[in-house]
């Protein structure tokens, strides 16, 4: 968090955000992230719908993928996957 932050005179009034949530990359929060075994994935997309951060995207081929810029590593997708094709792996 080394960015230069504005002084109070420059900030928008009403305490509104001057940055989009996409600018806040939260991918470095967790110690683990999910990995998908595409051999077993059934493209049900439940991981996409369950992800509280919207960090599981649906690709054009119908499979999902993890956006590691935003994934906080909560593991909900792994818990909910009906075919158990996802697992949490330690970041290295």
């Amino acid at each position: 968090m080394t960015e230069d932050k504005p002084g109070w005179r420059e900030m928008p009034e009403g305490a509104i955000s001057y940055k989009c949530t996409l600018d806040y990359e939260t991918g470095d929060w967790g110690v683990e992230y999910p990995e998908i075994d595409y051999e077993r994935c059934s493209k049900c997309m439940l991981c996409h719908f369950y992800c509280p951060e919207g960090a599981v995207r649906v690709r054009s081929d119908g499979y999902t993928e993890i956006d590691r810029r935003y994934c906080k590593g909560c593991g909900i997708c792994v818990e909910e996957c009906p075919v158990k094709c996802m697992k949490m792996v330690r970041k290295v």
Partner: protein
Amino acid sequence: MYEDGEKGLIVTDERLMMGLNGDEAVAYAIKQVEPDVVAAYPITPQTIIVERFSEYVANGLVKTDFVSVESEHSALSSCIGAEAAGARAFTATAANGLALMWEMTFIASSLRLPIVMAVANRALSGPINIHNDHSDAMGARDSGWIQIWCENSQEVYDACIEAWRIGEHTNVQLPVMINLDGFTLSHTMENVFTLPDDVVKNFVRDRRFIKVKGHLGESELRLDPGTPITMGPFDLQDFYFEHKLQQVEAMRRALEAIPEVDAEYEALSGRGYRLIHPYMVDDAELVIVGLGSTMGTASYVVEKLREKGVKAGLVKIRVFRPFPKDELVKTLRSIPVVGVLDRAISFGAPNGPLCEEVKTAFYEEKDRPLIANFIHGLGGRDTSPSMIEGMFHRLMKIKSRGRVDQLIEYVGVRE
């Protein structure tokens, strides 16, 4: 028809004079303003405001959406939502109702939503009491709301119109609380000069918004799907402090905006009030400073004492937040003795809330009066002319002794 040929003023035409108690004056002014949303919960002594206004709604006299809520917390929350969406919103409460709103009062001001709220001042429980003192509004003193205090129903009516222009002023954008003493004003009928509907409408005009730079570029400070902004997000150690400084600055600017709006209102109505109202202070030796309806009684006492040759005077504080420090210092600097009336207690504090501010205002001044503090009228106890005369006699003693012996004197309490 209502024009004064010479000054262009809307003069005190008897056709515009109405018999209104304080609560009715609020309801009638808000009817003329016709805000988009009124969300309120009835509580004594504010009840008449809600009753009258809901009658206006039921009779189709206003287009306002009246939200019948289950609590004051929800009343102010509804107003916050409405104002965030760009609407005008009004609410009214008293005592415990204001206490229940407390959490939301801070949110309204920090989101810079110019809600207008009338407070029919009443003592806080407990023990439970429905009558007037200022403990409710003083409890919300630090919530970031502008506070206007009224002496009579006329001032209540005028404040309920001016408040919109003050709060919505593009240099201000803060909520405004209009204080009227419970029962003493809220339930007492007086002659009130009103303005024609169209004059009120033209004065309050449409709500003005400030421009802010949100995450997708410039937008008005209101929720609009076309130009989305995020209001009220999590605000941590690295930003919260800066946002508070913006509220400090908005209050400072309100000190300039209030007289500006007031002058415009005076040009229209012939009635202006400014930040403070000094009465007979120019050559005064003993001056009483206070808030609200008591100052009407005090002005009667000042006149009586003047007849007896006592150089008495008074200063009514009309705007308590922002505190009009400079005007007060300028007015009272050369007065030998000042007595500050507080109708609220800050338990364990050296003085009442108003007196502490008056003393703070003078701390850095070389020339300053001796300042005494009278706490009076708690729980609706009457403050009679003879009690106020007694206060002036105490000020005389203080003047002859040259010092204040007792930090607080409680007036009208049984020993």
